[in-house]
């Protein structure tokens, strides 16, 4: 016969004692596992919610950027870089710049590390008389956007006007019912209509866009430009225009920078504000999730130690009762030769078994309680580590609680027990 058989037989004989001890351990383990499972579920749920919100905000941001793009595209370029000697008052009065600057300015700007503007477009523009139609128009030459060296290529706001082609504003094509493909002549130069813009209600309606070189030729402004148009980035800064001016001044000292389209920018800023509000809501949701988890952790910090201490006390009580109950039996076993070591093994072996069974039952119960009281999550809440912890810590707890009663039982004098009986 082995000690293990003695342990199993004793458990079978005093099964209620075993069940009560296992229940104590199970409750402690179940409290721990349920708390951990609920915290895990809360964290996963919170992460999923935040991820969902993040996606919503991201989608909204994407939509916002798209709308911004449409707005700014509709508006056209809202940053104008003008020559140093440009009279801003005259520029506003005439609706077009009159001074020029070297064409390579745009190359310097494009090759710089500037990030506060993009979509660089050099133009020559001048208010001229369309002699064939006897109309005053704005003739603008553009070579298309200049790619910025340090940036990924962007879809241009304004397409390149090929040589021999012209893009017409509303007031220039509508009265004569001109369409893409129509032929016309501007101040002696034969051109084909490439595109007709819808009415914008701005100076664009009386503008004809031609290829930059052709415009320079028509206006006698070879290798010169009047302005560099750009689109300011939708960056959150305290004073955006001042920052843009500062950045451009570093590359093109002496040039002047104007911002156009305040109304649209205000709208964009409102949308930026809306994005900030969404971000704040997201942060709030994250904070709310964190608070719920912290609250659950705080509850667990109280509940779990209480359950463990209660379980410990309960097992001590049961072990003391068990040791008292087995006093006579231990006395005779000691008399016939079992050492105190054997008696310790008898009690601690039982305690370990109680812990192992209690740990297993407690884990299953705790997991079921934890998942049952949590909002369903897609991921599995099963954690092998916690199962192992339960199966290791519960026997350790049980053995620790039984240690003193086992020592007392092992140390009892068989002669005293035999004399008592």
């Amino acid at each position: 016969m082995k000690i293990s058989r003695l342990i199993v037989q004793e458990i079978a004989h005093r099964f209620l004692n075993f069940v009560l001890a296992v229940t104590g351990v199970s409750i402690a383990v179940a409290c721990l596992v349920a708390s951990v499972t609920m915290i895990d579920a809360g964290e996963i749920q919170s992460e999923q919610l935040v991820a969902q919100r993040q996606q919503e905000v991201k989608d909204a941001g994407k939509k916002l950027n798209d709308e911004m793009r449409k707005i700014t595209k509709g508006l056209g370029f809202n940053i104008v870089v003008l020559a140093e000697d440009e009279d801003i008052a005259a520029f506003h009065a005439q609706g077009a710049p009159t001074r020029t600057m070297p064409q390579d300015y745009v190359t310097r700007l494009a090759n710089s590390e500037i990030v506060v503007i993009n979509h660089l477009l050099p133009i020559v523009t001048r208010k001229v008389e369309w002699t064939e139609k006897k109309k005053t128009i704005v003739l603008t030459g553009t070579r298309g956007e200049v790619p910025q060296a340090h940036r990924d290529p962007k879809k241009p706001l304004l397409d390149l006007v090929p040589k021999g082609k012209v893009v017409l504003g509303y007031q220039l094509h509508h009265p004569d019912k001109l369409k893409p493909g129509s032929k016309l002549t501007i101040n002696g130069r034969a051109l084909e209509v490439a595109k007709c813009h819808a009415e914008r209600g701005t100076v664009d309606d009386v503008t004809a866009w031609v290829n930059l070189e052709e415009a320079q030729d028509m206006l006698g402004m070879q290798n010169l430009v009047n302005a560099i148009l750009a689109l300011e980035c939708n960056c959150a800064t305290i004073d955006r225009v001042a920052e843009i001016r500062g950045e451009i001044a570093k590359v093109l000292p002496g040039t002047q920078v104007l911002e156009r389209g305040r109304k649209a920018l205000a709208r964009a800023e409102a949308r930026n504000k809306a994005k900030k509000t969404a971000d704040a809501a997201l942060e709030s949701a994250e904070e709310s999730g964190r608070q719920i988890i912290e609250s659950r952790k705080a509850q667990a910090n109280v509940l779990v130690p209480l359950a463990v201490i209660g379980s410990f006390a309960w097992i001590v009580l049961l072990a003391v009762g068990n040791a008292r109950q087995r006093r006579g039996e231990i006395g005779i076993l000691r008399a016939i030769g079992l050492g105190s070591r054997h008696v310790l093994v008898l009690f601690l072996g039982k305690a370990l078994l109680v812990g192992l069974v209690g740990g297993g039952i407690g884990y299953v119960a705790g997991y079921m309680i934890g998942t049952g009281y949590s909002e369903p999550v897609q991921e599995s809440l099963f954690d092998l580590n916690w199962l192992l912890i339960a199966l290791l810590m519960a026997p350790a707890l049980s053995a620790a609680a039984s240690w003193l009663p086992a020592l007392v039982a092992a140390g009892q004098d068989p002669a005293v027990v035999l004399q008592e009986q």
Partner: protein
Amino acid sequence: MLISLQNIKKTYTGDAENVIAVDDVSLSVDAGEFVAVVGPSGCGKTTLLLVAGGLLGPDGGEVTIDDIDPYSLSTEQRARFRAERIGFVFQQFHLVPYLNVLDNVMAPALVTGDPAARERADSLIERFGLGKRVGHRPGQLSTGERQRVALARALLNEPRVILADEPTGNLDGENSQEVLQTLQSFAQQGGAVLLVTHDPDAVAFAGRQVALSSGRIAENQE
């Protein structure tokens, strides 16, 4: 000498007064001897038996069992010494209530781990007529059967000495006879039996009788 008790003294310390249980008792039991210690209740018989069994250290005197002083051994060594050299039989049987007959008989083998113990246990169970009760627990046995189980347990490790404390106290005549015959047979086969009793019928089986009175030997007769 298998059992040698020389000038044994044992006093129980109490709150009010000290009780001298055994006072300068010397007693030897040789191999093949069956000695009965008799005397009224409280005369120190059981104390003397516990001292002889290595269970209760004397305040004075010398104890040797099979030429070894059990009290010179550590607690764990003394426990193993008891398991290997001494068989105990008690009036109350002291069986483990949740073990069946076989497991109770096999209990001393927990210490020795002797692989032949099972065979001896089966043999003892058959010898004591418990073959059909092998799976029964003490609560399912008669008093006579319980004492036979206790006897089989005492004999399992083939001890040199059997110490019996009123082994027939709870038994009827027939079962008493069987127990005493077993003890007698054990002595005849070279063992030493020290029986504590106040049963006159039991004394008749002993080869020698020692009478105790107030912790002292009053009479020692063949």
